[in-house]
């Protein structure tokens, strides 16, 4: 029942289109079931001289238009009726195809958008822990599985069931005995088919896995080509790949064998059913129990049940898959997104930041920040120094509201951080991450990204500040150069500088560099900081770095160790104390003499 609810949720908004698609299916099926009746009528009553025995009041209709005689003298009527019925059948068939596509595609589009939106809104923590490949599979192939089910399988299944009902209701009044003969073998085929495909799922999955293993071996070989060559291991690799290649082939051949038995076997039963209809019908016709037209009609009707019901069996074998996929999709949608809009917005942000006894832990009992307090004046530059795992990145995460602190207070211009909406905070704080991610589009688009930067000149200015403008101009296509997978390969420093430009272009009161200046050399680092200062004196800047030259120029330096502030003060103040900072400074500044 939960599954059904999921399906309804999927179809939500396209329900009406889907229902019209179903209605089209029903009408189409009605008309397709009429054609054999016309043939029977023509053969038995028009050409032959049996009395008219059409169901659904058609016999009376014929009386009214002048009886069988008038049809005999106007034979074109039969032609017109046959073509007209087919046109109607075709029209509804078209509507069915079109409407079910509209319903399924609209639902899928909505579901894709919803998934994408949801993923964007999920908390940072989710993305840190998530398995990218698995999520992508849920968003793509699982959606496709459900879409196929909605667009084709479910509609076809309804069509088949309805077709069987209509056909049976035409056949039974004509001859119950003959009807039973015409369907006697069908249940066997149906059950065999359902069971066969349920069992096949296992071997299908095995084969997919074998293919995956084979592809992985190929990929490893190609990416590790230097290792393969350097160890002269080609022959070994060939044998290894052949083993996987062969395993994949053997599994496929196993499927082929099973399939051959299945299709051969069920074909036999289905064709026997046909033969049975023909043989018994003919025998009864010689005894005058049924008419010739009935044999013809029943032969066609049997065909309208035998093969589709085998198809239905196949669909039912696969149906479980669609529901498994639905479940996997809803698992993503069920995870709680972060509240993006709740809280204050549109309040002016100047850039004064105060941490007051802040406590934070990812896992219970393992504090990452353990009572941190400090103050950052508006417009000042603060540098943070700390070892890996000291908590400096967590500090930035908190400020950005990627995580929420458990104890203490963080205020911006006196307003408690957790009262301000995430949206507003992130619009007012710019952060350059340690490992920048560039989007696969032009450099220009990468810097301009978002809707905030409208002015073209802003983009160039940001690039100049990030010391990347000249390098970009040197590229063949300049700012139009595409980066990312399908574009040029940029060096780490270039990527980092584009990321800096992108953040700078946002023109925000608070800027954070999360160890992001270390990928550029010392000189460029200093140039960038200089340019930033020149642009705006009011920007509050937080820089995480190991570079003493960078640290020394900050207004204030925070040394963080094991979740606590170990030292705090200006460069001069800190070197007058005997602490970590002084030790590092001494090592680095004495280098000149030491190495010579």
């Amino acid at each position, binding site marked *: 029942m939960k599954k059904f609810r999921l399906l309804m949720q999927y179809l939500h908004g396209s329900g009406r289109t889907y229902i019209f698609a179903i209605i089209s299916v029903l009408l189409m099926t009605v008309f397709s079931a009429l054609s054999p009746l016309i043939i029977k009528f023509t053969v038995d009553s028009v050409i032959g001289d049996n009395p008219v025995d059409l169901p659904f009041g058609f016999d009376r209709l014929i009386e009214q238009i002048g009886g069988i005689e008038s049809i005999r003298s106007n034979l074109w009527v039969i032609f017109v009726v046959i073509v007209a019925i087919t046109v109607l059948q075709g029209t509804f068939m078209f509507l069915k195809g079109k409407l079910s596509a509209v319903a399924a595609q609209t639902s899928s589009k909505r579901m894709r958008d919803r998934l994408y939106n949801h993923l964007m809104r999920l908390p940072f923590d989710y993305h840190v822990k998530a398995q990218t490949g698995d999520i992508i599979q849920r968003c793509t192939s699982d959606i496709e599985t459900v879409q196929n089910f909605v667009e084709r399988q479910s509609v076809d299944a309804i069509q088949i069931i309805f077709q069987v009902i209509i056909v049976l209701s035409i056949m039974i009044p004509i001859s119950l005995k003959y009807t039973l003969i015409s369907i006697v073998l069908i249940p066997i085929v149906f059950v065999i088919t359902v069971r066969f495909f349920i069992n096949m799922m296992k071997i299908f999955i095995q084969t997919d896995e074998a293919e995956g293993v084979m592809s992985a071996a190929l990929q490893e070989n190609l990416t590790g080509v230097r290792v393969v060559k350097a160890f002269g291991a080609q022959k070994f690799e060939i044998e290894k790949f052949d083993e996987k290649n062969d395993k994949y082939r053997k599994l496929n051949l196993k499927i082929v064998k099973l399939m051959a038995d299945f299709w051969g076997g069920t074909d036999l039963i289905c064709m026997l059913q046909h033969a049975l209809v023909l043989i018994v019908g*003919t*025998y009864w016709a010689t005894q005058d129990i049924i008419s010739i037209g009935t044999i*013809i009609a029943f032969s066609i009707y049997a065909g309208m049940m035998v093969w589709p019901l085998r198809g239905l069996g196949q669909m039912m074998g696969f149906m479980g898959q669609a529901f498994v996929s639905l479940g996997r999709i809803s698992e993503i949608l069920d995870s709680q997104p972060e509240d993006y809009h709740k809280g204050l917005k549109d309040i002016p942000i100047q850039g004064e930041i105060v941490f007051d006894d802040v406590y934070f832990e990812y896992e219970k009992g393992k504090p990452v920040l353990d009572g941190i307090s400090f103050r950052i004046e508006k417009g000042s530059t603060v540098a943070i*120094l700390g070892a890996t795992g000291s908590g400096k990145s967590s500090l930035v995460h908190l400020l950005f509201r990627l995580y929420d602190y458990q104890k203490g207070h963080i205020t911006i211009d006196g307003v408690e951080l957790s009262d301000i909406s995430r949206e507003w905070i992130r619009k007012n704080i710019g952060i350059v991450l340690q490992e920048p991610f560039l989007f696969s589009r032009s450099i220009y688009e990468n810097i301009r990204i978002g809707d905030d930067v409208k002015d073209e000149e802003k983009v160039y200015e940001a690039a100049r500040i990030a010391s990347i403008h000249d390098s970009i101009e040197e590229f063949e296509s300049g700012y139009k150069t595409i980066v990312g997978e399908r574009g040029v390969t940029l060096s780490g420093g270039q990527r980092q500088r584009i990321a800096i430009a992108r953040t700078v272009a946002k023109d925000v009161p608070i800027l954070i560099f999360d160890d992001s200046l270390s990928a550029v050399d010392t000189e460029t680092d200093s140039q960038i900081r200089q340019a930033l200062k020149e642009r705006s004196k009011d920007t509050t800047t937080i820089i995480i770095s190991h570079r003493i030259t960078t640290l020394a120029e900050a207004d204030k330096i925070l040394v963080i160790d094991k979740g606590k502030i170990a030292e705090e003060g200006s460069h001069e103040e800190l070197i007058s104390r005997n602490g970590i900072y002084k030790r590092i400074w001494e090592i680095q500044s004495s280098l000149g003499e030491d190495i010579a």
Partner: protein
Amino acid sequence: MHFEEQEYSKRFDLETFKRLLVFAKPYKKEIIVLIIQMVLLALVDAVFPKLNQYAIDLFAVNHSLDGFWIYCLIALGLVVFQAANVRLMILNAGKVENSIPYDIRKAAFNKLQELSIAYCDRTPVGWIMARLTSDVKRLGVTLSWHLVDFFWSIFLIVIMTVMMLITHVGYALLVLSVVPFLVIISMIFQKIILHNFRKARRLNSQITAGFNEGITGAKTIKSLSIEGHMLNEFKDLTSEMKNFTVKAATISSIYTPIILFLGSIATGLVLWKSGAQIGENAISYGTIVVFSSYAVQFFEPVKQFARVFTELQYTQASAERVVTLLDTENDIVDSPEVTERFGQMFDSNREEWPKFVGDIEFRNVTFRYKEGGNILENFNLKIKAGETIALVGETGSGKTTIVNLACRFYEPTEGSILIDGLDYRERPLLWVYSNIGYVLQEPHLFSGTVKENIAYGRQNATMEDIIEAAKIVNAHDFIMNLEKGYDTEVGERGSRLSTGQKQLISFARAILSDPGMFVLDEATSSVDTETEHLIQDALHKALAGRTSFIIAHRLSTIRSADRILVIDKGRIIEEGNHKQLIRKKGYYYRLYTNQLIEEQGKMAFEA
């Protein structure tokens, strides 16, 4: 070479197909039998309506049972025969479908092992993967199922036409009059349908890429607060997909109704004309039945034929790409003289191999890649056996090229490289390769166990050898701490191990194969201090007594090298040991001090 995906080929190139027929050759028997089976299948399919005709005309109309039981036996016999034939046909086609891709994959993989590093460097891995997966699969399907559909549809069309003409020329012409329309419409629609299908696949992969970007870039998207912007862009993509697929579905939904309409015209005409003639005994009941079935039955083979015809164009494109791969000229091979003396590349006669001492000389070496200018020009360098050379310089300076040439991953464009006094082109490739110990900055492990990875360069190594190698490089302890020790699976490309662990294993692997020459492309990525010490120690053991090239980043490594070469634009601009170069106060001095500042900053906390 260009890697743009050409979707389908406009012209039909017989040469390409002939090249592929080589792969079909081992299955000549199966394919011929398959064709015969299709003739029989089509024949029986066409005969079934005739069975109806006989049943009605001979027995039902005449109220006679003369020969009825024989008739039944024949009908049942045909049914059993047809089902048996279907089963054998599937077995046969399935065998061809899966065996040909297996063969091509095997041949292509062998080819790839022979091809030079240069080829692998300029060919994206994804391109090769696609050739050996989807393209090869398509070839298999074409040489089996498309072939089946093709022959079945042609035979069925021909046989049905003949049957109709034999049964009644007049009605045959009536039914056949709609066939040209059927064929033209099917050709047009099948082409559109298949092209739309391919385009939908392309759009779909764009959506996948969109999801991928959204997920891997989630952190950045949050940091820039551009969720709304990204969503809008994504929505454009999904809207395009939706509009296109709905349009495509609309077009393909018209196809079957049109075909049914044509069929109904034929059926209607038969009924109309026959009604008038049956009284005159010009046509029997059975004949009406036959013709009304044929009018409907014609649709399927025509549709199949049109489909296969369109599919062939795509297969042609796949075939061209696969042939490109298989026909790639190998630019680094053993010379005929070498082959004559030492045997084929992978079966080189190791007993004949000379000992590898390790003197290496670059003599007037000029090198350029296929495209672009010279990377090295008249480069000269002499290295004594056992010497450790550190290469220092910026990205693109040519240090990797020097190592690639020394390893014979590439060969000089001009000039020569001598190993132990002889141009290495006069030695077997495998001899050079087998004497290289190679450790990459991103250590490349293969899926499999730790044991298998260490033994990679020496398959016949005993467990004792493996443990000894691991102990030398300080890997033994952490390996024993793994869940299953040496039998622990390392995961795809070693994903279950840390970078430091992977490096230690790759050192063990290099040591076990006991190479005469050692190459290290050193990592810039930092590992924790303790592992760092282990790696340094392993490194020294690996280098001992071997000619070594190190593309160096760590100061301690650089400092301990016998000779440091500072490379800039393909030239050695500074050369000497650490002390000499520091005194020079040149490029090396600057580089060294900068580097030291970085390293000290990080290490101060851990001191």
